Structures are given as structure tokens and as C-alpha cells.
């Protein structure tokens, strides 16, 4: 006899412990109740008759203890799981189990799964299909399943398991608050599948999806034994696939809005584009309000095509803009996927710059600055000028005023005696070198200026020469004085002694100068997509970054690493970052804008449909193959016998 459970020594220990306890309890049981009787000889007669009846009667008290020890022995041996090779049925060797089948159940939770069909979202249908799959395989203990949520950040929700209860629970945990606003990163999903199925026998990838993602390669399908349980029906959808806002280059307070709207249906549709602004809005619902409407624009959308539209001269308060597209009310077609109908944009807030023009009189400069919408111009004579306080930029036009106070100075034809050392004049200098990468030279072509004369200003170490004439004579350079905190842009010639005011370059140069001192005024948009890991420059101080998002968005965690902050948001909206050290807030707009997701009509990925495996009939284990069962039965029988005889006072 061998023991497959506990070892022999462990069994002896157990028997010693329980048997000893049984004996102690038995002795304790023998402490009898003291009863006083008037005449014991009468009882003696009874006892004499009883005790002298048979040997068994004399032995039945220790016999009772032996029976109980026998019960303990049977239970202890049963714990050892004994195997008797010679006993009928006990030499049963179960057949080798069938190869374990591994099914990686990938449930699409991307934005397109929020499509409503028949009162249910595709995600709800996908969950039902996944539950049905688990129910079909749960009868086979050799079929293991792993549940994976597929979206922009593919994540496994279980380990490999055949526990149907855990699998059902995991399926219910797939995007519990509804499909995310993120696209499907199918490449990431396939990479996870390759890793999970590697070296797994009979492995397969089952995707429950509407197929709204790029086509999977045939090699991947074969390698992963891809099966698809399709969900969704062909339906109409329009959505914004691109949305961008940018300020005009002349730094005015108006914006140009670029919108691309896609029609993912077989019929052309008329649609309306709405623009909303809400300087404190975070969620979509915060913007979609008639009171916040900026304008509406009609669109004619071709079948299965896109329309791009640029909307000029859009003015709005604050920095947060939303676009929504909707099928025209006179069109009976219903948009089944509303999540891609909205896009958000966050633009740098622009403000008017306070500019002081200190001059004896310069019509060109005055006119150029005056017409700028974002410039509040103050023209001062040198006597009136008190300093740079209260001005964003001070334009010093050939006059001698103090320029050592901290501030931004655009110095034109610097007068001798100032912070710049003038070594003389250069007659008719010709532009010999232009640093086109410098911000001051953006969109500017300084050609044919016909400069009559320019001052020969001696540049210092650290000065950045943007434009220079032959011989290295600087025509336009910048200087940052770290000691005084003053920043300078110096143009060494009087504009009135050149043709610069007559060229297109002049207003652009002025814009560039102002933008050089205030670069935020020239911000451009970078779209952020939901579901993906974002790495953004962090303008706030402090490491503990808190994120406040839309009301319907789950909690988003952000982590600062150096000068950047990393976060991922699954819902579209505006997310505000804040830190304990900084009173300011930094906003981040997150959008869907994924053409693949907007193609909500199920896409055939060309994979085989999933077919439930035939039920596995396990060979039943002969009942007697486990001796412990037999021992337990015997112990139970002895307990019953002991109970029966004890209550009938046979074994007393």
C-alpha cells in the first residue's frame, strides 16, 4: 500500500494526536455523576446479574473506546489517500487528459463598440457573446480561457483559467461604464495575443468585435488561429475625423477652424456643423448648449467620403472650442455612433499686448502697430517715457532713453549712449546672411530693402545675429541681458531709410518681433487622442499632478517625469492638470477622431468564425479507485453503528 496524500510519519503523528485526544476525552467521559441511594444491595443485585452475563459485556466499555479509535484510524488513513495496487479498481490509471485548449478571448471595447443597435450597444452584445462562449467551454476542464479587453490600451483581465465564474466576472468587467472613446490598437492586441499564446498548445485568438480597425495580416491570422465573433450591423454614421484650430499669423484674436467630417454610409447626407465655446467646459455636455453656440455650417457629405472645411474669422472667448456634427434634421437617417460627432480643441488664450512706441514720430511704425488687433499701442515721446513698467514690449525708435530696466525692447537704429556700442555708419549695406530658422525670420524675406545707411553696432558675446550685411555688420540681432533681465531685438537701420515699410515683410517682421517676446501668442494645436499614452510638456511646478476630467470620465492618473507629464484618458473631453505648488492649471483636450473607429459598419477581417468545440466526455473515474472514499464509508458506518448501539445502551 502506498500513500498518495500524507506520508506515513505524518499519518502516525495525526493518529497519535487524535487518538490521544480521543482517549483523554474518553477518560473525561468516565467521570460519573454521584448519586446517593438508600440501599445499594438492591443495585448490587442488578449489577451482579448484568456483569456476570457474558464476556462481551465485560469488554464492551473498552470495546467502545476501541471502536472510536478505529474510526480515527480510518479517517487518518483516508487522509493519506492510500493506493492498493492489488485491489480491484484501485489500480485504475486515468487516461491521459486531452491537450489543454487555450482560447484568448479578446473583447473589443473601443469607441465604435458604443454604437447603439436595437437599444443595445455593441459592447453589450459582445459581452453576451463572450458569456455564451464561456458557457460552451466550461464543461471541459482542459479548456482554459483568458479574457482580454481590446482598445487603445489592450489589457488582460484574467489569467489562463477554466473557472467559468471568474471568466464571467471578468467579462462583466470589460469597460463597465461603457465603451471607451479610444480607438482600437489592434497591433498592440495582436502583440499581446502572440505573447500569451506562445508555447500554448491548441491556442486560438477569438475576437469579439465589429472589426473597426485596420485589416489584420494573413500571417497573423494563421499564426494566432484567429477566430472572430462579429457583432454589429451595417449602419449609418458621420463623424469628425479632423478638427484643428489655429490663430492667424498676423496675431489677431481670430482663429481659423479646420474640420474634416467623414460619412461612413452608402448614402450622401446633409449635415450641420456646430461650433461651441466654453472657457470652463470639460465634458461634451458642457459645450453642447445653445447658449454657447458660436455658429453652424451646412455640409454636404458624399457617400463613404469626407468633406474638409475651413471656417475663417472665428472669434470666441477663452480657449476651449468644441465642434459637433449632426445629420440634418430633414434627413431621416439616424447616426448610430454619436461618440465621434464631437471634437474638442484647446487653443492658447490670446490677449492684447501693451506696446509702447517711443519715437519722435514714425508713421510707418505707428500705423503698423496700430492696425494690429492684439496690440494696445501707446505712442510716447522720449520725454514722456518713464520706463517699461506696464508694457509688454517697448519699441524704441532711434531715441536715447534708458533701456536697462527689465523688459522687452525692440530697438530701431539705436542711438549712441545706450546699451549698444555704435561704431559708426555703414552706407548702403547689402544683406549677406539671413538665419531663416530664427523666429524673427519666419515667413520673412529681407530682399531688395535698399537700405540707405545702417549703424555699425558692435555685437557682444551671446548676441544672435539674424540678418547681417557684408563684413558681418549686423542688421538684425537679439540680445538677452541676464544681469538686468532686459531682452532686446535690435534693428540697426531706420525703417524710413529703407524700402522695408513698402514690403510685405514689414508687418510680418513686426508680428515676429512681438511673437518673439510672447511666443505663446503663436501657439499651434497638437491633437491628443483618447486611450493612448500622452506625453505632454508640463508647465506647472510640482510633482503631484492631479487631473480633473469630464464628469462621465473615470479617474485619470498622471505622472510627471522631468519636464513632461504622462497620462492616458479613455473619454474625450478637456482635462485640467493641477499641482499643489502651482495656482495655475494646465488644460489638455482629448479627442477620438479615428477614421477606422468611425467606420462603424462591421468590417470583415476575413477570419474564420468561432465554432464551439465538441463537448469533451471525460472517462469516469471508477468510484473505488480512491480507497479513501471506501474508508470514509466504513468510518461512517462504524460511527452509525456506535451511535445506534450507544443510544440503545448496548455498548455501555
Amino acid at each position: 500500500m502506498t500513500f498518495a496524500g500524507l506520508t506515513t510519519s505524518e499519518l502516525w503523528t495525526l493518529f497519535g494526536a487524535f487518538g490521544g485526544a480521543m482517549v483523554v476525552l474518553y477518560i473525561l467521559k468516565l467521570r460519573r455523576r454521584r448519586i446517593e441511594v438508600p440501599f445499594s444491595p438492591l443495585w448490587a443485585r442488578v449489577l451482579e446479574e448484568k456483569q456476570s452475563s457474558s464476556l462481551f459485556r465485560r469488554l464492551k466499555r473498552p470495546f467502545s473506546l476501541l471502536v472510536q479509535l478505529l474510526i480515527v484510524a480510518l479517517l487518518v488513513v483516508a487522509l493519506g489517500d492510500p493506493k492498493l495496487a492489488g485491489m480491484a479498481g484501485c489500480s485504475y490509471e486515468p487516461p491521459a487528459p486531452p491537450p489543454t485548449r487555450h482560447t484568448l478571448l479578446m473583447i473589443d471595447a473601443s469607441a465604435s463598440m458604443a454604437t447603439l443597435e436595437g437599444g443595445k450597444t455593441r459592447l453589450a452584445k459582445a459581452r453576451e457573446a463572450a458569456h455564451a462562449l464561456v458557457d460552451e467551454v466550461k464543461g471541459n476542464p482542459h479548456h482554459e480561457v483568458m479574457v482580454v479587453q481590446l482598445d487603445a490600451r489592450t489589457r488582460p483581465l484574467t489569467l489562463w483559467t477554466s473557472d467559468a465564474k471568474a471568466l464571467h466576472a471578468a467579462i462583466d468587467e470589460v469597460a463597465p461604464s461603457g465603451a471607451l472613446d479610444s480607438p482600437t490598437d489592434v497591433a498592440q492586441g495582436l502583440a499581446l495575443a502572440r505573447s500569451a499564446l506562445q508555447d500554448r498548445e491548441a491556442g486560438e485568438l477569438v475576437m469579439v468585435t465589429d472589426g473597426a480597425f485596420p485589416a489584420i495580416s494573413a500571417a497573423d491570422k494563421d499564426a494566432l488561429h484567429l477566430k472572430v465573433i462579429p457583432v454589429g450591423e451595417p449602419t449609418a454614421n458621420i463623424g469628425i475625423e479632423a478638427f484643428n484650430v489655429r490663430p492667424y499669423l498676423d496675431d489677431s484674436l481670430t482663429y481659423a477652424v479646420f474640420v474634416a467630417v467623414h460619412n461612413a454610409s452608402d448614402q450622401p447626407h446633409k449635415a450641420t456643423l456646430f461650433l461651441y465655446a466654453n472657457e470652463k467646459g470639460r465634458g461634451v455636455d458642457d459645450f453642447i448648449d445653445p447658449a454657447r453656440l458660436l455658429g453652424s455650417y451646412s455640409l454636404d457629405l458624399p457617400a463613404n467620403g469626407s468633406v474638409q472645411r475651413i471656417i475663417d474669422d472665428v472669434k470666441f472667448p477663452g480657449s476651449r472650442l468644441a465642434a459637433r456634427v449632426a445629420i440634418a434634421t430633414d434627413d431621416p437617417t439616424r447616426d448610430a455612433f454619436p461618440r465621434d460627432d464631437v471634437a474638442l480643441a484647446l487653443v492658447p488664450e490670446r490677449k492684447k499686448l501693451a506696446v509702447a512706441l517711443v519715437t519722435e514720430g514714425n508713421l510707418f511704425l505707428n500705423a503698423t502697430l496700430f492696425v494690429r488687433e492684439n496690440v494696445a499701442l501707446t505712442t510716447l515721446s522720449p520725454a514722456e517715457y518713464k520706463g517699461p513698467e506696464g508694457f509688454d514690449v517697448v519699441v524704441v525708435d532711434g531715441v536715447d532713453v534708458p533701456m536697462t530696466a527689465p523688459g522687452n525692447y525692440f530697438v530701431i537704429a539705436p542711438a549712441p549712449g545706450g546699451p549698444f556700442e555704435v561704431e559708426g555708419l555703414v552706407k548702403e549695406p547689402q544683406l549677406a546672411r539671413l538665419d531663416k530658422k530664427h523666429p524673427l525670420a519666419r515667413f520673412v524675406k529681407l530682399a531688395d530693402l535698399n537700405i540707405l545707411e545702417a549703424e555699425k553696432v558692435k555685437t557682444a558675446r551671446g548676441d544672435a545675429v539674424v540678418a547681417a550685411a557684408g563684413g558681418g555688420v549686423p542688421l538684425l540681432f537679439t540680445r538677452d541681458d541676464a544681469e538686468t533681465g532686459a531682452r532686446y531685438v535690435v534693428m540697426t537701420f531706420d525703417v524710413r531709410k529703407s524700402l522695408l515699410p513698402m514690403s510685405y515683410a514689414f508687418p510680418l517682421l513686426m508680428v515676429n518681433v512681438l511673437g518673439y517676446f510672447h511666443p505663446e501668442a503663436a501657439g499651434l494645436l497638437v491633437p491628443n487622442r483618447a486611450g493612448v499614452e500622452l506625453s505632454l510638456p508640463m508647465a506647472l511646478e510640482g510633482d503631484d499632478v492631479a487631473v480633473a476630467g469630464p464628469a462621465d470620465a473615470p479617474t485619470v492618473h498622471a505622472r510627471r517625469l522631468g519636464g513632461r507629464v504622462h497620462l492616458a484618458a479613455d473619454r474625450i473631453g478637456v482635462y485640467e492638470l493641477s499641482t499643489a505648488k502651482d495656482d495655475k492649471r494646465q488644460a489638455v483636450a482629448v479627442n477620438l477622431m479615428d477614421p477606422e473607429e468611425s467606420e462603424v459598419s462591421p468590417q470583415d477581417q476575413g477570419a474564420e468564425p468561432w465554432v464551439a468545440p465538441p463537448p469533451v466526455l471525460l472517462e469516469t473515474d471508477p468510484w473505488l479507485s480512491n480507497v479513501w472514499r471506501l474508508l470514509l464509508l466504513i468510518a461512517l458506518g462504524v460511527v452509525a453503528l456506535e451511535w445506534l448501539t450507544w443510544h440503545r445502551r448496548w455498548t455501555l
Partner: protein
Amino acid sequence: MAAGAAGGARANAKDGRGRDSELFDDAFMARLEYLDIVAKKRFAGQTRGERRAKKLGAGLEFADHRSYSPGDDFKNIDWNVYQRLGRLLIRLYEEEEDLYVYLLVDASASMAVGDRLKLDYARRLAAALAYITLSSMDRVSVLPFSTSLGNRLVPARGKAQIFRVLDFLSAVQPGGQTSMTDAFKSFVHQTKRRGLAVVISDFYAQDGFEEGLNYLRYNRFEPFVIQLTDERELNPDLRGDILLVDCETGAQKEMTLTPRMLAKYREAHAAWCDELEAFCKKRQLSYFRTPVQVPFDELMLRIFRAGGFLA
């Protein structure tokens, strides 16, 4: 009138005699009066003194003749017989004496097991018998016994002596083993006047009852056996593992009681009682057995109906 006397005496006894006022309360005294009346009605017109001691002496009623022996009084010689037969015979006359009733009350520990129910019952019964005896102008003596014979109440006569009897019975304390042989041997040796020996006991005697009763018989006492039993002893509410302790000897026996053993015990008890009854019947002794749960006056009526006590 007797009840009134009893009540007044009882009030006096309360003051200083230490009589058991719960055992011998007013209701008990009223029952004694009732029993006395019933006894008189029952035996009216019957000949008294059937059980009188037949002592030959200076009585008026001729009883028998016997041969003359030297030293006999000449006046008792029957000269008429001498004239006819030529033999000297002495006339014998029956001398009448008072009846002596000895109440032998078992005061062993077995009588006080539990709540002293048997001892109380025995004392009440003894008091009732004493009252009836005293009202018949006979003499009564009370003798508690256990291992040996205890202090006795010397024979008293007259109804007024009932209070002495009650006081004496109140002072009886239980204890010791039952040994009828030793106790009755002492009794017959110490008692010259023969009479009715009423034995009130549970007869739980370690040495048996036969020898003790025979002592009485052989010494011309007339035993009157009253066996007291307790229903609770017959049907003990016991089960399981117990340690039985004899209240008199302290002997211990371990046993596990089962319904079957209890039945055996009842059988053994019945056999014990039957042995006693058979012993008494065989020797024509009056025998009464009663559970203490039966009121003592009912037992008295049974005794009256059966006859043989005083009538």
C-alpha cells in the same frame, strides 16, 4: 375536647419543647382526633384485650391447674380435685395487665435520603398510632433505632401523654446504618413487659430483617410490620454513567443506567418487598406496605380495617 387539649398543648410546646411544628401542626392534631373517633366506632362492642398478655397470677378468672410444687401457696390448692383424684393441683387464675405497644421507628440514614420524607412519614405514623393507643388507655413506648437501639420514651399511659410522644418524636435525628438484629436484640433484652412491637421501617437493613423480627417473635413480642417505600426510589430519574453511593455504608458502585437496568432494579425491589411480605405472612405477622406518597391517615384506616392492631 381532645383536639382542644392538643391545640393548647401545642401552643405550650412551641414555647420551649422544640417540637417540630411543621411535622405536628394543627391539621395533624385534628387528623389524630378524627382517627381516634373512627377507631372507637369501628371497634365498639368488640372484646378488648385479645392480645392481652396471658399472665397467670392473682386474677379472678380461673385459667388452669398445675401440679403442686413445694413452696406453692396452700390457699391455691384445689381440694375438690384432691378429694376426687387424690392429687394436689394448684388453681391458676388469669391476671389481667395493660397492653404495651412499642413503636420501633427506624431512624437510620436511609430513612432520610433526599428530603427526609420517609422519616417524617414514620414519625407521623408513630404519633398517630401512639395517640390511638393512649386513648385506649394502653401504654405506649417509642424506640428509635438504627445501628442500635437509641434513647427510648418510657412507656406512658393516658391521652395527655401524647405531647411527650410528639416531643420525643420531634427530637429523633436520622443517622447510622440499619441493623435490626442488634437493635431488636437490645430491645428484647431491655424490655421485660411483652407487647405489641410495631416496626416502622423501610427495612433497608444490611444484615437483613429476618433475624431481627425473629428475635421479637422468640421473645414473645408480637411484631407488627409497617414497611415504608418511596415511589421516587422505585422509579429513579437517573440515566447514563453514574456513581451510586450507599447513604448508610458509603459503599460506591459505578454503573451506567439504562431503561433495562432500571426495570431490573424495580424487579429486585419488588422481590425484596415480596420477601418481607412472605416472611411476615408465613409467620402470621401483621404486615403493611405503603408508599410515603399515600397520606398517613389512609394507611391508618387500612390498618383499622384489616384489624389486629388494637382491636
